[in-house]
């Protein structure tokens, strides 16, 4: 069975001032896999996410998604193409309810043009009803239904993280980038999140996870890429990575987390 690369990172470099955050990186992400992206602090993991999701204007190189060059596109254009992400720090619509948060997530599902929305035509109303159903479905799947009228800011940390993933899912992405989804969670919550990640993958969505909790990454991911100083130093299955000398070296002297 031919495994296709859904996202290709080709010779990508990103400089901040004189410093290379990402240096000539080449990376393939394959369809329907769960890829772990690990590495010491400052290795360039979040930078890579920011480049792929369109938050940084790319310095050099190409990003190819589903055989289409998406280099240089804006964040919202990339979302339209089918790439979604979460953030290291819980980025939610804090002063909106859980329901409203997820509702906005379905923004790309609208087919009626905006000006019709102004006149509140029946077609628009119908569409909104459809989306409302989808929101409730998704909330149910993620177990957030009891909290749907709570303000996002009032949620406990673990639930905020889940809400973040929920919102990202609402966009109907083909590729989901999770930036440190397990931060600040206790072991039970981590277990639940990893199960959730597997469930999402089973829907046919490719997932890339950046995490500091190396053990969790080993458990959750089928394949792992290790970055250090903006370069790929290792790539392979969890077993291979655990015994890779370069990886161990990169982590020596660093505070181990998780």
């Amino acid at each position, binding site marked *: 069975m031919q495994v296709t690369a859904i996202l290709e990172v080709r010779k990508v470099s990103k400089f901040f001032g004189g410093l290379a955050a990402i240096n000539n990186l080449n990376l393939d992400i394959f369809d329907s896999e769960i890829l772990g992206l690990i590495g010491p602090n400052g290795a360039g993991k979040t930078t890579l996410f920011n480049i792929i999701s369109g938050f940084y204007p790319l310095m050099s190189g190409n990003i190819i998604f589903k055989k289409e060059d998406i280099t240089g596109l804006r964040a919202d254009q990339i*979302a339209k193409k089918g790439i*979604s992400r979460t953030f290291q720090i819980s980025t939610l619509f*804090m002063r*909106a309810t859980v329901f*409203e948060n997820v509702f906005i997530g379905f*923004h790309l599902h*609208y087919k009626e043009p905006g000006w019709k929305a102004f*006149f509140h035509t029946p077609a628009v109303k119908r569409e909104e009803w459809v989306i409302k159903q989808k929101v409730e479905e998704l909330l149910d799947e993620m177990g957030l239904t009891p909290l749907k009228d709570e303000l996002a800011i009032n949620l406990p940390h673990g639930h905020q993280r889940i809400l973040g993933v929920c919102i990202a899912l609402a*966009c109907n992405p083909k590729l989901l980038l999770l930036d440190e989804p397990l931060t600040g969670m206790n072991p039970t919550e981590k277990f639940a999140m990893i199960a959730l990640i597997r469930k999402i993958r089973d829907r046919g969505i490719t997932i890339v996870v950046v995490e500091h909790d190396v053990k969790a990454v080993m458990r959750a991911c089928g394949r792992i890429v290790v970055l250090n100083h903006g370069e790929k130093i290792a790539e392979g299955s969890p077993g291979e990575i655990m015994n890779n000398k370069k990886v161990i070296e990169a982590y020596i002297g660093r505070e181990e987390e998780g």
Partner: protein
Amino acid sequence: MKFVTNWRASRTAIIIVVLVITVLLPLIVRNSYWHHLFIMGFINSLLGMTFSVIFCCAGMVNLGTGAFFGIGAYASTMLVMIGGWPFWFALPTSIGITGIIATAFGLISIRNPGVPFVLLTMIFAEIISQIAGQIQFFGGWGGFIMVPRPNPIGGIEFNTKVPYYYLILCLFLLVVVVFKALYASRIGRVWKAVSLSPRLAETLGINVYRYRVLAFVIASSAAGLAGSFYAHYTQTIAPQTFGGFFSILVQLYPILGGIDFYVFGPILGAAIMTFIPEYLRITKEIEPIITGLLLLTIVIFFPRGIIGSLSNFPHVRLARISDRVKEITNWLSGMGPR
């Protein structure tokens, strides 16, 4: 005060009562000076709404409202006095002109929606003021005097304040209805998202820039509408009127009322600022100082404005009607942010 248990019904009842009172107001209060205050109250509310819409929907701070107020005023004045147009054509046209200029300005300056935008709006207001003053075609520093009143319509002539009152009331209601319709729609939801977290909104496929420009243009056009009315009401316009201080004063209204309530905040703030200074007889000289102090006091002690702080007032808590107050503020914010 007892509220009927059916909140929806009492809500509609309140709206109707308020509307009826507003419509009958010039007949109840006969004093022409009071009519003037009412009219200025509406104008100030409109301008306040310009600021609050741009803030609530685009997350930007616009300190140049005076610029578009002035553009509307000048466009309308010049169309009528130089072009010979009747007021009723000049009004919509000057709104359009304001909208076009706002679009051009917005497209350029909203690329940097943070602090550079604030500075650009301030400088733009100054530039417009300078252009109007330096160039004789635009009236120079003396501006225009004897701006004609609106032409009689349906037999009604504009020789007392009362027809002006009804005109501004209609315009005001029109603007409020348009804003509310927008905000209640999907566009309004996107606006709320943009104002809460533009970054997250972008991740969800929202073209934040486009929605911001939209909010800016619509709000600025409303300011232009107010300007056009103002010119034919006061019948004189001069560059100094629309200068820097004016724009700053305008933003006091929504902040005083409550910055989260994009319709009722400016209305309350404008009402207070229009009527109270009359009682206190504040001279033009120290007006900026009072305004400045007021601004500082509000930001430091009541950042959510009057409406926003309602539930926090101690006597409200004591009277145990805080739940009721919360309901009311929620309702107001239902007419505010959704």
